[in-house]
């Protein structure tokens, strides 16, 4: 049981720490407004940092060099990510593409023009978004209705996608569409990539309950996609979808943001019956449980790193990470509002505690429990893939997709 790097890992960590210190962008001059995700100045800084990393061999470290990576190991990549997070210069713009979509593209496509899209994304020159979910296909992720019909050397696409994070600014999308509605649902899907500027693609932002606009609806009307932009086999898209979803859930379990220190400091700043809210025994009992659960997420990541360090695939230990993180975040922000009492309602950044971070996170928390696999889907995954319990009875598994009841 130790947290120490091997000599090679320690040497690598020292090297990247020095390099990050020397090269990391300074967010200091940005105003609070400019520091928000998707603000043009913030996004430009993120793009430049990604390019700087790519030039130095620190972007997608474990990917092959011909794809823009550095041909390094998974543990080197993990160490770099830790140091990057430590320096406060980790950005989210490229994560969907680099962590979820492009690994699947590299795994399932052999087309040179498609693979040529990877390296620019590694440099941050392009942003990718995921076009999977639909109004009638959320947890039922194979229930895709968006249709792709053969036409000459390509496909004509019609349908609607939803919950597309970053689609408003994305250059490319990865799309799953139904190519054969006469086959059972998992067997008639095909995955493509497309330029988001293709005629017929319309992105409409969705305003979430938190007031943020990062998610979108994407309407596809008679969009043409050449066949070389197909990823994987015709009607073999489910395999590609699974690759990306597994990557997404692993990435979401990492647990970032407000932690036990923040909520303790908040409690210590709030007056209570006697002393501060930090003196309240009920709060202290809650805090102990919260610490134990939220620290477990951080500690479990060290177990995952241990596997990577040995060159092994991570075990099932991280399966609960996303579930735990989403739920502890919701509970913690709710507790923070309670501590503030009536004033917990105030989220004016100039007046609210921590600039309104607790209120903002509180309003995001329901989405954490839904996005990237709902709580219920995550529990099914643990029960079926980790514990080996049987899948649900499926009334839709073997029937042609077009005959599945839709309730409409």
């Amino acid at each position, binding site marked *: *049981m*130790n*947290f*120490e*790097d*091997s000599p090679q*890992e320690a040497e690598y960590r020292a090297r990247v720490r020095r390099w990050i210190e020397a090269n990391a962008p300074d967010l200091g001059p940005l105003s609070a407004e400019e520091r928000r995700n998707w603000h043009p100045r913030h996004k430009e800084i993120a793009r430049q940092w990604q390019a700087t990393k790519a030039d130095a061999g620190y972007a997608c470290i474990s990917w092959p060099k011909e794809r823009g990576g550095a041909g390094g190991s998974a543990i080197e990549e993990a160490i770099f990510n830790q140091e990057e997070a430590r320096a406060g210069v980790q950005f989210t713009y490229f994560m969907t593409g680099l962590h979820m979509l492009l690994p699947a593209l590299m795994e399932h496509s052999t087309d040179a023009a498609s693979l040529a899209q990877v390296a620019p994304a590694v440099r941050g020159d392009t942003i990718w978004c995921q076009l999977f979910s639909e109004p009638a296909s959320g947890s039922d992720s194979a229930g895709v209705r968006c249709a792709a019909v053969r036409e000459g050397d390509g496909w004509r696409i019609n349908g609607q996608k939803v919950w597309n994070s970053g689609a408003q600014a994305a250059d490319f999308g990865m799309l799953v569409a139904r190519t054969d509605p006469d086959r059972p649902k998992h067997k008639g899907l095909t995955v493509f990539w497309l330029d988001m500027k293709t005629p017929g693609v319309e992105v409409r932002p969705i305003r979430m309950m938190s007031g943020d606009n990062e998610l979108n609806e994407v309407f596809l009307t008679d969009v043409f996609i050449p066949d070389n932009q197909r990823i994987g086999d015709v009607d073999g898209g489910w395999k590609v979808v699974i690759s990306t979803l597994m990557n997404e859930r692993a990435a979401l379990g990492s647990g970032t943001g407000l932690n*036990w*220190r923040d909520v*303790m*400091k908040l409690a210590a700043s709030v007056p209570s019956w006697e002393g501060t809210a*930090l003196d309240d*025994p009920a709060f*202290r*009992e809650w*805090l*102990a*449980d919260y*610490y*134990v*659960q939220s*620290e*477990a*997420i951080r*500690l*479990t990541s*060290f*177990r995952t*790193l*241990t596997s990577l*360090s*040995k060159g092994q695939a991570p075990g099932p*230990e991280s*399966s*609960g990470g996303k*579930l*735990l993180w989403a739920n502890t975040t919701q509970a913690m922000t709710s507790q923070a509002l309670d501590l503030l009492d009536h004033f917990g309602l105030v989220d004016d950044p100039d007046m609210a505690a921590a600039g309104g971070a607790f209120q903002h996170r509180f309003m995001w928390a329901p989405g954490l429990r839904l996005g990237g696999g709902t709580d*219920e889907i*995550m*529990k*099914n995954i*643990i*029960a*079926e893939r*980790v*514990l*080996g*319990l*049987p*899948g*649900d*009875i499926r009334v839709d598994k073997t029937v042609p997709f077009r005959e599945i009841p839709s309730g409409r």
Partner: protein
Amino acid sequence: MNFDYTDDQKALKEEARRFLASVSPLTVVRAVLDDPGRGLDEGLWARIVEQGWCGAAIPESYGGLGIGYVELCALAEELGRSLAPVPFASSVYQFAEALLVAGSEDQKQAWLPRVAAGEVVGALAFSEGAGVLRGDRLATRFAHGRLSGVKLPVTDGLFATHAVVLAAGTDGPGLYLVDLAGPGVSREGLATIEPTRGEAQVTFDGAPAEPLGAPGEGAALLERIHDRAAILLAFEALGGADRCLEMARDYALERYAFGRPIGGYQAIKHKLADVFVANEVLRANAYYGAWALSTDAAELPVAAAAARVAACNAYWLASKENIQTHGGIGFTWEADCHLFYRRARHVGLAIGATRDWKRRLAARLEARLAAEANQESAR
């Protein structure tokens, strides 16, 4: 980075699992349960002593094997999994640790080799009836080399040969080492909800005893001893909680209702997924505790309290939901589920209940935050 057992530690753990499966099947546990007042299996204890496990973490200079605390954690995990009805936790996690934490060089030389060899079976006697222990309200007193008062309950107090006793001395609470076979000691077994781990009432009436550690420091010393025991007991809880989840999973696969295995229903799947997550929370915190214990890290008090809270929560959840998954059969004497339900409560109460440890954890986190703020301002 290796936040896991090493390959050698894994081999030791597997060996221990095989050994315990052969010498301590649940039929052995059940035989103790069905024989009120017995409180342990002496034959099994002798076999475990023979393995040298009692001295796993005791340094070689004190007659132990000195192989280390992570190894002791691995053994604890397997002992917890097997529910072995032996006084290992009392003698090794508490009595030996009390000597290591508080003993003089002479005391360590005199006693630790005998604990390692199993000649001495130690207990730690601190509780005095209902409610949380208050160091400033101890009724047991030490004066002129003699102890008087009643300790209730004392885990393994009937079988133990010696005890470390928390008592009020002239300078405040202190720890005192006493021979339980000596004069002025009477003992009585207690009926409890967990008869496979014997509890006793121990009455001292002028029993000769010697101080262990500085007088007046008893409460602080006991806290340090309990921190170390908390980490080791967290591993016992982990072994038990994992086994509960396996039992529930196996039964959910085998039991059919409404024409299919009950494990196919989300009501069961989601329940067992929650147990899985709680067990992983425990594993992460227990491993952190093992690291802190094996390196004597400054983080030990926080890590110990966190491991303790995670252990009590997870074992309780796993043991009760194991019964629930089994349905009516799980509520019978014949089914093994209740053996874990009993042990989960024993582990959860024996060195102080969760409420007390949550209180400690919060206080320690507050102290850590203050220390970090001081470091920050010193920079």
